[in-house]
């Protein structure tokens, strides 16, 4: 997300400040994304543990900020790599995470309007809704494998077993699902992409 839409500065510039020990920049990143890290955790572990995970993850952000490299991806992807790792670790200790995953699917498809928080920055909210809409737009089978893989930490083989689908079907649905999601999330840069494709064809 380009910096100019982000009051308070873009994520990348904030994390660069955090790397120099800037607590205000850190607080700003916390305000932006604590809710997402918390949601990721709180749907699969008890809330007290979700709080602990949020704390651990942001302490890591503070300690490792210097290792963040904007050339390799967004802050959100970096943050969620840390957070998901931590959450899946906890989740794998459960013998039957199925229930939490069903709940996640239900929540995602909940027809009610998502609640808006007063303090939520408009561009963050837009981003969240964009992703939600993209995910809701997937065919149910593709959404299910994406949810089981990402939120449940299940391998393709486990998903196939879990759902009783052939492994080849699961592989295909994972591919289609995430590709579709990627396209939906990068629509605003489609023009650039087309131009690049045209250049490649012209070569």
């Amino acid at each position, binding site marked *: 997300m380009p910096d100019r839409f982000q009051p308070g500065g873009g994520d990348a510039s904030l994390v660069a400040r955090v790397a120099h020990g800037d*607590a205000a920049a*850190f*607080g700003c990143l*916390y305000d932006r994304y*604590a809710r997402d*890290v*918390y*949601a*990721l955790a*709180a*749907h699969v*572990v*008890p809330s*007290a*543990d979700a*709080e*602990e995970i949020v*704390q651990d993850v*942001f*302490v890591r952000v*503070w*300690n490792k900020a210097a290792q963040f490299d904007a050339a*390799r*991806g967004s802050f*959100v992807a970096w*943050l*969620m*790599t840390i957070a998901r790792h931590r959450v899946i670790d906890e989740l794998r*200790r459960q*013998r*039957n995470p199925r*229930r939490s995953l*069903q709940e996640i699917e*239900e*929540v*995602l498809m909940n027809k009610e309007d*998502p*609640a808006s*928080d007063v303090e939520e920055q408009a561009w963050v*909210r837009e*981003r*969240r*809704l964009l*992703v939600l809409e*993209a*995910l809701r737009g997937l065919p149910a089978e593709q959404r299910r494998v*994406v949810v089981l*893989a*990402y*939120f449940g930490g299940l391998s*393709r083989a486990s*998903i196939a077993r879990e759902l009783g689908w052939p492994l080849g079907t699961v592989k295909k649905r*994972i*591919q289609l*699902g*995430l*590709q579709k*999601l*990627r396209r939906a999330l*990068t629509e605003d840069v489609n023009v650039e992409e087309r131009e690049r494709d045209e250049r490649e064809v012209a070569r």
Partner: protein
Amino acid sequence: MRDELTCSENRELLEAYALGALDEEEQRAVERHLAACPDCRAVAAELREAAHALPLALAAASPLRPPSSLKGRVLQAVAGDGGTTKKTGPRRSWRPRVALALGTLAVVAGFSAWNAHLSSALSQERSMRERLAQLVGRQETVLDIVDSPRARRALLVPPAGADSQAYGKVFTTPDLRDVVAMAARLDQPPAGQTYRLWLTETGRTHSPGRMVVNAQGFALLVFKAERRGPAYDEVRVVLQRGDAVTPAGRTVLVWRSAG
């Protein structure tokens, strides 16, 4: 260990790689390929962005929020150690609690099993609940809560002196945030009025929603409490104007904590 992946073999795996759905061997093979292949690395980076955007979707749809006190604790944690890795005290273990929750879930019986031992009256209420729950797409939640051996049930009755045969039940379990509230034998509300459920806990009264009565006088409301195993001091169903924001109106059903 198999041979190195070609680009096209590798591309086939990148979506699953981004979602963390490869087994260890596949994952290592992809990582070896990516280390040597800038083209595939670019594709992988885009897919990684899409995958790690997923928590944003969940946060948009989820009612769960970190408590506001958490920020202070996090800031304190990073201020306290000057940027070195913090070691907190012994981690609380939540596994016993999870084990308990799973024990509860394991008891949730199959359809045929529980159908067999139902009295007909209960069965009628149950099938009604089931139908309504299906209607709102929450059947599984309702059955899990209502049939849980750990479910706590509050029986709502008409207030003293009221000429009414209505009754209601509110089911909570210690492990879940889901709450099922039902009421039966309610009259259709007069025009412009509605039945609304009101909960009082620790001095605060709020409403999780309306109880919409069907043609049989039955109403069902499934909602998420603010925490697992909610404990209410008082539960009321109030007949009131549709736009009411306080429990003002006629209380038709009530339950009060004995404690």
